[in-house]
């Protein structure tokens, strides 16, 4: 697994944001630096030493070339640095807050009460990001800090015209007053990922453990639509909502036809998803019928529907084209049965923390 947190030593005291530059393999050493850059000076198999105006930063356990261009949030007293932006990755996500107003049965990142405002650090990180990055904003529920979030997006979209954002939100905190603010954003470059689990509000509300959530999502989606936002609906497939998936497809195509895409997602075995695994995991290799019907309906009505986090071999061959490799690089793995599989290069595999007994009855390419 690619580490997101590194062991470090530094002579600085306060937390700071820094970009690592190695300048290895270039013929001249007159680099142009910003005040946020730290330059590689010495490296062994165990550590790499970088120096900048903030002092020296010693990074352990990873080769200097693997962190070149990375943007770190360094917390000196903890001896750790968070890799806010990994230069060689297309899967960078900034955690806006750990607070949330829902408590989803399968939450992969269970909420916490405390909140630390990281936006100032995130702004620096985004400005230091490599070209054409897509940056995820997640939580918790990012729109609990809606005004800060929208201001952040406004400034970053203007400052970095090459960067796209993907915001994961339950969309329940938007109101009509936000239309003006949303209208000022370059919304072509922001994709709003919004979870909807069922067209039956009882089922949806029960999954997110918040009465009235379904109606609030509907309102939020209306406002996003009215603002012209790009929306990605996200439906985690689980035992409680599997049977209703075809109905949900009908609902999406009639009531939410304005969405850019609809992602039907397999369950992630972490957080509450791990605790509730047995009551939630739906073996889509056996029960694909409900998924297939939902996909057929949605696609036939022009919805860009896709399957996220499904190992390719668990899908009927003619549905594999709808399952792009979606598991982020740093948490992707394959099981022993995947050795020598011809689909592996196109397959997202498993989450690193998926049980070794993976639960798919039909597995492997036959």
């Amino acid at each position, binding site marked *: 697994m690619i580490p997101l947190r590194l062991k470090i030593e530094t002579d600085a005291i306060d937390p700071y*944001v820094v970009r690592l530059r190695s300048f290895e393999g270039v013929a001249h050493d007159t680099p142009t630096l910003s005040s946020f850059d730290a330059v590689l000076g*010495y490296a062994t198999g165990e550590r790499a030493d970088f120096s900048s105006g903030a002092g020296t930063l010693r990074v352990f356990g990873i080769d200097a070339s693997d962190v070149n261009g990375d943007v770190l949030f360094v917390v000196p007293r903890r001896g750790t640095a968070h890799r806010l932006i990994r230069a060689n990755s297309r899967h960078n996500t900034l955690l806006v807050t750990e607070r949330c107003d829902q408590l989803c049965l399968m939450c*992969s990142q269970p909420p916490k009460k405390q909140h630390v405002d990281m936006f100032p*650090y995130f702004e620096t990180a985004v400005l230091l990001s*490599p070209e054409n990055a897509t940056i995820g904003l997640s939580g918790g529920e990012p729109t609990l800090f809606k005004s800060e979030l929208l201001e952040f997006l406004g*400034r970053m979209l203007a400052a970095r015209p090459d960067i796209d954002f993907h915001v994961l939100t339950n969309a329940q905190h938007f109101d009509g007053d936000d239309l003006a603010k949303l209208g000022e954003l370059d919304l072509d470059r922001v994709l709003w990922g919004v979870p909807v689990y069922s067209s039956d509000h009882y089922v949806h509300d029960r999954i997110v453990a918040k009465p009235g959530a379904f109606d609030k999502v509907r309102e939020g989606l209306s406002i996003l639509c*009215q603002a012209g936002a790009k929306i990605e609906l996200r439906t985690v497939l689980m035992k409680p909502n599997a049977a209703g998936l075809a109905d949900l497809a009908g609902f999406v195509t009639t009531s939410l036809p304005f969405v850019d895409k609809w992602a039907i997602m397999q369950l992630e075995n972490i957080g509450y998803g791990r605790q509730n695994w047995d009551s939630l995991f739906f073996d889509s290799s056996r029960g694909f019928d409900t998924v297939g019907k939902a996909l057929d309906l949605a696609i036939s009505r022009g919805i860009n529907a896709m399957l996220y986090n499904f190992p390719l071999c668990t899908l009927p061959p003619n549905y594999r084209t709808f399952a792009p490799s979606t598991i982020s690089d740093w948490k992707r793995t394959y099981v022993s049965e995947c050795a020598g599989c011809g689909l592996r290069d196109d397959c997202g595999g498993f989450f690193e923390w998926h049980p070794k007994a993976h639960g798919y009855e039909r597995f492997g390419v036959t």
Partner: protein
Amino acid sequence: MRKRLFTIPSLLAAGFMPIESTAMPIAPFNDGGKSKSLFDIFKLDHKFTLAGHRSHSSHSSHSSHRSSTGGGTYYPPAAPVYQAPAPVYQPPSPIYQAPTATAPAAAPLIVLPGNAAKFKEIVLQVQFAMLSFGYYNGELDGKMSPAMRSGLLKMQSDYNLKVTGTITPETLNALRITAD
């Protein structure tokens, strides 16, 4: 009269109306005419879908296919002594002010282009050269590794170069490799 009563419910039944009126713009919001009209909004980014599904290659960028969890807690709750630094939020201003600047901003922020392929090519050449001089016997894979680092340290020391363990311009010259 009777007919009118039946018109709307039958439209609803046929799925022609949004289920609730919240899905419809009830009143246009007033923002001094700056906003885009619904026409502008919908002409922007909506491609024609001929076969009911855009081809796989046009699934925009795969970067936007993401699973959900992000990184970790930046400040773990178990903090024994650590006090969160409470960065002061800067009010919106058109000019970016770096809130965590540790040094006076000398140069503007530079956006780095991706150069991973080029770097791999150079590493491969360095590996090959070090292999032939006897400072490396690992795989020729274009990747830096602990074996490469210790090989570089030893080579630089033997050749009286600055000992850094990194691929410096001096090292490239010594190995007769031209970069750029």
